[in-house]
């Protein structure tokens, strides 16, 4: 049986030691968020995730959701677990206090999100989608809509969805057809079919608030003619409680590879009553506000699953006795050595670990930047932070889900045949992780976002928020005798990244296909270099504490940093070669020869 223990020690390291978490409480509005307040939050979150959510992970996967007469039932135990989760206040931690939220810093909330994803990703989808809808409504809704809906979404009695995709349009939302007809009283009638709607219908909450992209009758063609509407499952009555059933129903639920306990619905809107969020034809703007936070969250999903998988594979590698070490018997008292003695098993475990801890640090960097962006008194510091968040969002989404998938796959491999069967839960992580590379914009789309939008924006200004601190760090530590072993490989990767960036900027302008051909490799090169920077800093942070009372933790940190630099970072060489080779071999290939 899989078990999960929240990695609180490492989370505290990242938050307090690496990211200087104490600084959070110095931001205006965050004064109360000192360590005394944050630590108990993390500990309580760990308890809920370990004791309430994780035990339902495998059973939820086995049972899945069911649809009967338009009613979706979540797996056994979900309703009770959601009640506990909601009553514990976990739906509201990251929300605006003005609507009953707890206003926790993003840097803290991100760690809680990771725990939920590790423990039970399918369960996490329900409150996760609510939060996405909350972000759009909070940012763009009218006061009356916000007053009517936000408090209930914040306290978790109502949940939310984002209804974007239609049968014929996914990535290209410009094609969407769902119609919204104004009724003259400020409301609209929405008609159309939406697919792949996570949490579209379920039995966890008394009402579901759908945010729906649709077209007004006079809308221009394409993405500039899309508006966002709020469409509740039950229209609130005069007291604000769920009243009359609205014209929205679940037509089917999808049968899918993973996250089976998350209901993925076909939603039919038939003259459903809704209200406009934000301005007419400006729906993409409100939708992207949600999409950007969701992309960071999806990156965290990859991280959470990789962490859970790593815990499973390490436990197994310690216990599983099989054969003997190549260099001689290590455990003569046992009938065989545990497989953890083998270099290749260690390769897999350390790869998982180095990716997990590196990604945790990267997620924390982005999260802290969001806090700085929202709260820092200096406009220039806020802009730098915002630049960084914009730049790193596609990297986090794609890199952390790709590495999450690789890591869960390695975790399964460590268990051999026992990983492939369901009993240990290792294959579920692989299956659950797979969607994270696809939804909220496929990882290919993320790569195009990075090279096509983020890189050229403001003549490259967004890049500055990453390249300048890294270059300054390299210059400051390059000659350092102790740090040299970490900083020199970082410097090598960084130069590759600089050169690849220059190359794409030069060729991509004239030949967009060249930028497109380089995009995915470039995003990976970018991400691995970012992790190298963070690993160098984590090693630096650990160096003078190796003899302290927590010395084992810091020694392991340094050891993982060393493994990352020596064994994983060299991938950047191959990526660099591939990028510099250009896209000709792909684009010259005759289309009908495929």
């Amino acid at each position: 049986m899989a078990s999960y223990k929240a990695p609180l020690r490492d989370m505290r390291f990242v938050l307090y030691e690496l990211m200087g978490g104490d600084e959070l409480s110095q931001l205006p509005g965050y004064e109360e968020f000192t360590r005394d307040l944050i630590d108990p939050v993390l500990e309580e979150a760990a308890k809920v995730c370990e004791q309430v959510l994780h035990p339902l992970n495998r059973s939820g996967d086995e049972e899945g959701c069911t649809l009967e007469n338009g009613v979706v039932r979540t797996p056994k135990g979900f309703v009770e677990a959601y009640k506990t989760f909601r009553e514990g206040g976990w739906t509201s931690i990251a929300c605006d206090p003005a609507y009953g939220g707890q206003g926790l810093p993003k840097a803290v909330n991100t760690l809680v999100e990771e725990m939920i994803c590790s423990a039970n990703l399918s369960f996490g989808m329900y409150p996760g989608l609510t939060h996405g809808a909350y972000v759009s409504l909070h940012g763009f809704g009218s006061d009356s809509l916000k007053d009517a809906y936000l408090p209930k979404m914040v306290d978790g009695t109502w949940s939310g969805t984002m209804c974007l995709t239609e049968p014929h349009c996914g990535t290209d939302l410009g094609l969407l057809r769902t119609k919204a007809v104004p009724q003259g009283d400020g409301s609209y009638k929405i008609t159309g079919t939406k697919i792949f709607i996570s949490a579209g219908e379920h039995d966890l909450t008394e009402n579901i608030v759908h945010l729906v992209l649709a077209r007004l009758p006079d809308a221009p063609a394409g993405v500039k003619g899309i508006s966002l509407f709020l469409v509740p499952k039950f229209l609130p009555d005069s007291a604000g409680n769920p009243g009359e059933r609205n014209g929205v129903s679940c037509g089917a639920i999808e049968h899918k590879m993973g996250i089976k306990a998350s209901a993925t619905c076909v939603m039919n809107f038939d003259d459903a009553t809704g209200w406009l969020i934000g301005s007419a034809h400006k729906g993409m703007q409100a939708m992207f506000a949600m999409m950007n936070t969701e992309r960071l969250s999806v990156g965290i999903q990859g991280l959470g699953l990789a962490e859970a998988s790593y815990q499973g594979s390490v436990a197994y590698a310690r216990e599983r006795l099989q054969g003997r070490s190549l260099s001689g018997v290590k455990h003569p008292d046992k009938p065989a050595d545990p497989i953890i003695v083998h270099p290749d098993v260690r390769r897999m475990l350390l790869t998982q670990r180095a990716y997990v801890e590196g990604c945790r640090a990267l997620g924390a960097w982005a999260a802290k930047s969001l806090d700085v962006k929202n709260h820092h008194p200096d406009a220039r510091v806020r802009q730098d932070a915002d630049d960084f968040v914009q730049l790193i969002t596609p990297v986090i989404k794609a890199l952390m889900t790709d590495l999450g998938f690789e890591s869960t796959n390695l975790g399964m491999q460590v268990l051999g045949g026992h990983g492939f069967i369901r009993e240990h839960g290792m294959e579920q992580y692989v299956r659950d992780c797979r969607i994270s590379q696809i939804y909220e914009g496929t990882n290919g789309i993320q790569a195009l976002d990075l090279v096509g939008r983020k890189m050229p924006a403001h003549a490259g200004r967004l890049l500055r928020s990453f390249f300048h601190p890294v270059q300054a760090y390299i210059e400051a530590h390059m000659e350092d005798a102790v740090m040299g072993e970490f900083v020199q490989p970082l410097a090598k990767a960084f130069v590759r990244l600089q050169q690849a960036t220059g190359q794409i900027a030069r060729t991509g302008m004239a030949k967009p296909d060249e930028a497109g051909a380089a995009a995915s490799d470039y995003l990976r090169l970018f991400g691995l270099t970012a992790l190298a920077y963070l690993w160098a800093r984590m090693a630096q942070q650990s160096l003078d504490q190796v003899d302290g009372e927590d010395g084992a933790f810091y020694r392991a940190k340094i050891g993982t940093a060393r493994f990352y630099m020596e064994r994983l970072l060299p991938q950047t060489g191959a990526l660099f070669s591939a990028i510099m080779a250009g896209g000709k071999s792909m684009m010259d290939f005759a289309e009908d020869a495929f």
Partner: protein
Amino acid sequence: MAGINKVAVIGAGVMGAGIAAHVANAGIPVVLLDIVPKDGANRDAIAEGAVARMLKADPAPFMSKAAARLVTTGNTEDHLDLLAECDWIVEAVIERLDIKQALYARIDAVRKKGSVVSSNTSTIPLENLVAGLPDSFAADFCITHFFNPPRYMRLLEVVGGAKTRADALEVVSDFADRSLGKSVVRCKDRPGFIANRLGVYWLQAAVVEAIDAGLAIEDADSIIGKPMGIPKTGIFGLIDLVGLDLMPHVIGSMSQSLPANDPFHAITRPAPVVERMIAEGFTGRKGKGGFYRVNREKNKAKEAIDLGSGEYRAQRRADVPAIKAAGRSLTKLFDHDSAHGRYAWAVMGRTLAYACALVGDAADQVESIDEAMRLGYNWKFGPFELIDQVGTDWFAAKLAASGWAVPEILKIAAGKTFYRVDNGTRQVLGQDGQYHDMVRPDGVIMLADIKLKSQPVLKNGSAALWDIGDGVACFEFTSKMNALDPDIMDLLGKSIRRVKKDFKALVIYNEGSNFSVGANLGLALFAANIAAWTEIEAMVANGQATYRALKYAPFPVVAAPSGMALGGGCEILLHADAIQAHAETYAGLVEVGVGLIPGWGGCKEMLARWQSLGKLPKGPMPAIGKVFEMISTAQVAKSAAEAQEALILRPGDGVTMNRYRLLADAKAKALSLVDGYQPPAEPSFVLPGATAKVALDMAVAGFQRMGKATPHDGVVSGALAGIVSGGDTDVTETLDEDALLDLERQAFMSLVRHPDTLARVEHMLMTGKPLRN
């Protein structure tokens, strides 16, 4: 043939005064007379007032303050005798025949024998002007029609009458060409000559067609604009500039004098909406507003006239799907099945057909008509070049299909183009149906011609080296906006080695509208954003080394700028042995505008110039102060004359008035330096170091206290002060060039890492305007 050594202009209105100023720009003394005002004690007030006004005007009619001193002002009552010394007398008084003729009689009484008299009339036929005057006057008389403003508009239409002496025309044309820098187009004595006859037809056709089609003026201006290489002011924006009230005046005069069968009459129908605007004082930019206006009562809202209602409404962005659908194809635009496509054809089809009708009437050569429209109305392509773009046969067929007459010249051109290149020579179709070589006047060399005939000696994506004959090579920038980039530096380095081997001298010249606006900021900013400091430092060092190699090359180097030569584009001038500048050269070291300092030897060279040539008090400080002031305020010399004052041009450097003659002059200058050529001696610098820096820093701090310098100005000026004061030195030490180049490079590298500098560069790239942070 006697030359023109002194000129008189009578009539100190906008045109007359502008012509006088431009004669002075050429270094020629000029008398400017106007009538005695009815009131006031100062009998010269009108001419004096005109000069005073021009000294304040922007864009400036004078190329330098010194030029204004060449203008002698006076009045036509007391000072007509001054005309006796003048070789050319230009009349630019009110367009009334009686007044002009009376004036001519008085001029004729005092002028010296053989002097030329010309009128700047735009509407009165020459034969009417000289009617009744003695033959001796008519023989010396012609029309010289300048365009407004005379300094900047390169077209001069010259019309001779039946009795005009050929050499009178010749002497004026030659003077206009070489001294005033004009492109002279000979016209026949027909109403409106060439440019206004066709130009006014075009404008009027565009107005009435837009009214008939009910178009938004923004849409009309975007159609009759960029797609055909017409300035983006389009139609309505241009009429706002010239004045709505001028149009009926010119149209009336032309319809009166043109024969009844002239196609001109087809478009002279009244436009009530425009008439009402004029009556109410909405005459354009000089009036209460024109087709466009900025409404000061509505928070400076931009507004445009609705042609249907005659009321102002909010200006909006042009929305013309036809332009996008047509791509770069004019035929597709003219054929586009939409109100916009039909409008494009209705206006341009008519206008181009009218251009054809003018062949043999207003001018005998199609290239004269093309040149007149290019230089008089700033069209990128003349009408016959546009017809070549759509094809003569396509055009004739479309005219026929529209039920319009197919002009004679189009029948002659059937199956042909108006222009062609034959064996590397540009040729033009004549009225005889034959192609004729287009021969440049003596003393004109165009790189464009050389490029048709030959292959570059060296070439890469941003520059090329050409053989321009007689052992002289020409280095040309070819990058976008002629921005300097690593490819240019690379080819310049290669070119220096090649010229040393195969040529006698090098000219640096191009035919872009600007010589160079400086380093490619986009590249530099991108490199800075990704912290590619080594790469940036290499770019600086490489530029320094290349410019240094240019300076000490074993052959003479002449730089020949025209238009803007800014930043790195100015620094290259400073490293040449000599400069042959077009009069309209705008040069300066403007790096501080983007938070940087000149890093390719610009500080060093300016310091060397002011140390050795500046007529300044003794000691190092005056030169340092001068250079510091120029660079720290990003001073731009707004003409070659101002560049002389700034010592960007040195004594011995040349100025060419006519853009077409620049390369030939530069080549001649280069050849004149070949015999006994010695590279310049390396300058040395004795600078005060810290004491000078303190003084400069204090001055900047003073400006900051007064609010004239921003915080980052202080940082940039501080870095500049560190260079021009000599860094860590004192007067007991002598610094060489390398020491100053090191200071430039270090200062550049420290500034380029500064976030406020990067914000300035980004702002300049995004908005085209400097950021005052």
